[in-house]
C-alpha cells in the first residue's frame, strides 16, 4: 500500500512498510473506536429538558468493564506490534549478511561524500573512487556501509530503501542494504545539522552489472581523495 506512494527498492523495505502498516492499522482502529465512543457518550448523556447532563464516576463494575476489556484487547495488539518490531529489527539491524562490496559514507556540513571500493573491490586502496553527492551501486548486491561524520550529527536517509541511520562524529557505524531494482533516487540528511541542512541532498544511482562496471572503469583513475 505504501509502495504506491514511494517505491520499495531494498530487500527489507517491504518488511518496514509492513510494520508501519501494522502499527497504523492497530493504533488507528483504537483511535477511531475510542474517539467514536467518547463523542457518542457525550451526545447520549447530554443535557435534555428535565434531565441534567450526567457525570459517571466509573466506579461501578458494569461501567468499569468498558475500560478494562478494551484495555486488555489493546495489550494484545501491543504484543503483535512488539513481535513485529523485533522481527524487523532482527532482519535489518541484528543480521549482517556477507557483503559483496563495502563502501564508506561520510557526512559533513553540507554534503555527502562517498568512497567506492574501485576496480579491486577493496576499500581503502589507491584505486578507490571518491564522489560528492552521488552514490553508485550495483543492483542485487549486498553492500556494507561504514557511516561517518566529519563534524556534527547527520542522518543518512534513502527513502526508497526505508533506511535512516544517524552518523556520529568519532564513530564508524556499519550497516547494510541490497537494492532490488535499478534507478536513480534521492538521498537526504534526516538530522538537523546547521544552516545548510535543507539542501544536504544527494542521489543514489542503482545500476545493473554492466552499467556499474562501466562507471567504475570510467572513474577509477579520475578522482583522488
Amino acid at each position, binding site marked *: 500500500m505504501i509502495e504506491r506512494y514511494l517505491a520499495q527498492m531494498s530487500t527489507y523495505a517491504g518488511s518496514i512498510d509492513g510494520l508501519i502498516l501494522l502499527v497504523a492499522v492497530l493504533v488507528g482502529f483504537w483511535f477511531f473506536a475510542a474517539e467514536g465512543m467518547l463523542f457518542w457518550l457525550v451526545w447520549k448523556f447530554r443535557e435534555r429538558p428535565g434531565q441534567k447532563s450526567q457525570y459517571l464516576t466509573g466506579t461501578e463494575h458494569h461501567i468499569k468493564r468498558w475500560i478494562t476489556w478494551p484495555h486488555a484487547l489493546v495489550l494484545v495488539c501491543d504484543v503483535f506490534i512488539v513481535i513485529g518490531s523485533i522481527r524487523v529489527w532482527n532482519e535489518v539491524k541484528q543480521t549482517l549478511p556477507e557483503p559483496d562490496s563495502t563502501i564508506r559514507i*561520510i557526512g*559533513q*556540513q*553540507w*554534503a555527502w*561524500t562517498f*568512497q567506492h571500493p574501485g576496480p579491486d573491490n577493496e576499500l581503502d586502496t589507491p584505486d578507490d573512487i*571518491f*564522489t*560528492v*553527492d552521488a552514490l553508485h551501486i550495483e543492483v542485487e548486491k549486498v553492500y556494507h556501509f561504514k557511516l561517518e561524520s*566529519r563534524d556534527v550529527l547527520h542522518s543518512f536517509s534513502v527513502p526508497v530503501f526505508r533506511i535512516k541511520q544517524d552518523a556520529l562524529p568519532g564513530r564508524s557505524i556499519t550497516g547494510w542494504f541490497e537494492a532490488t531494482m535499478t534507478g536513480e533516487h534521492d538521498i537526504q540528511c534526516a538530522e538537523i545539522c546547521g*544552516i*545548510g541542512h535543507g*539542501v*544536504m541532498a544527494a542521489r543514489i544511482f542503482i545500476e545493473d552489472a554492466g552499467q556499474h562496471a562501466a562507471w567504475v572503469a570510467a572513474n577509477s583513475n579520475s*578522482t*583522488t*581523495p
Partner: protein
Amino acid sequence: MMARTQNVRLSAALLLGVAVAACNPTPPTPGLALGKELFETCAPCHGDMGTGDVEIDAPAIAGLPQWYIEAQLRGFQAGMRGMHANDLPALRMRPMAMTLNRDGDIPSVAEYVAGLPATFPESTLHGNAGAGAERYAAVCVACHGPDGRGNELLWAPPIVQLNDWYLVQELQNFREGARGADPADIWGQQMRINTFALDDQAMADVIAYVQTLR
C-alpha cells in the same frame, strides 16, 4: 450582531488577502536592498561586514569586485568549486550559493558585498616574503598585477585584501584539483596551471609577499 458580521467580513477579507499574497509573491526587485536582505544568509559565516571567520574557513569577501563574486557564486552553483570530497570549506559554501536561485539574487548580493569596505585581515602565516617576491614578479604579476589588485580583463581577482590562510588554501585547492579542474571552468584552469610548480612553502612565501603589497 452588526459588529459581529463586520468582524467576520473583515477577517474573511484579511484571510483572502493573505492567501492571494501567498499565491502571488511579487518578484523582488534586484538591487542593493535585496542584496542586503540576502546577505543575512551569508553573515553567520562571513560576518556582518563580510570580514570572514577563520573558525569555519570563511574568507573576508568584503570589497571583492562584483564581477568576481558573481562568477564565483555561479561557479559554486555549477559545481566548479565545492564538489571535491576533501575540500570541506567549499562543501559548506556550495549549498549557500545554491540558495541564490532567483533571477537577480546573485547580482544583488554581489553588489552588496562589493560595496562593503575591504578589511585587509592581519597576516597569520610566516612565509618568506623575499623568496616570494621573485616568484610573484616572474609569474603572478602578469594577471594579478604589480599591486595584487587583479585584472578584470583576465578575470583575475584582487588578492591583497584576502586572508593569507585562505589564499594558501586556495592555491592548494588549485594544485590538488579541488578548484580549476573542471573543463568548463576556463578561468580557474588558467590559474591552476600556475600552482603545479609550487610546494606548500613556496605558496606561503608568495602569499607573504602579496601581503606586503597593501
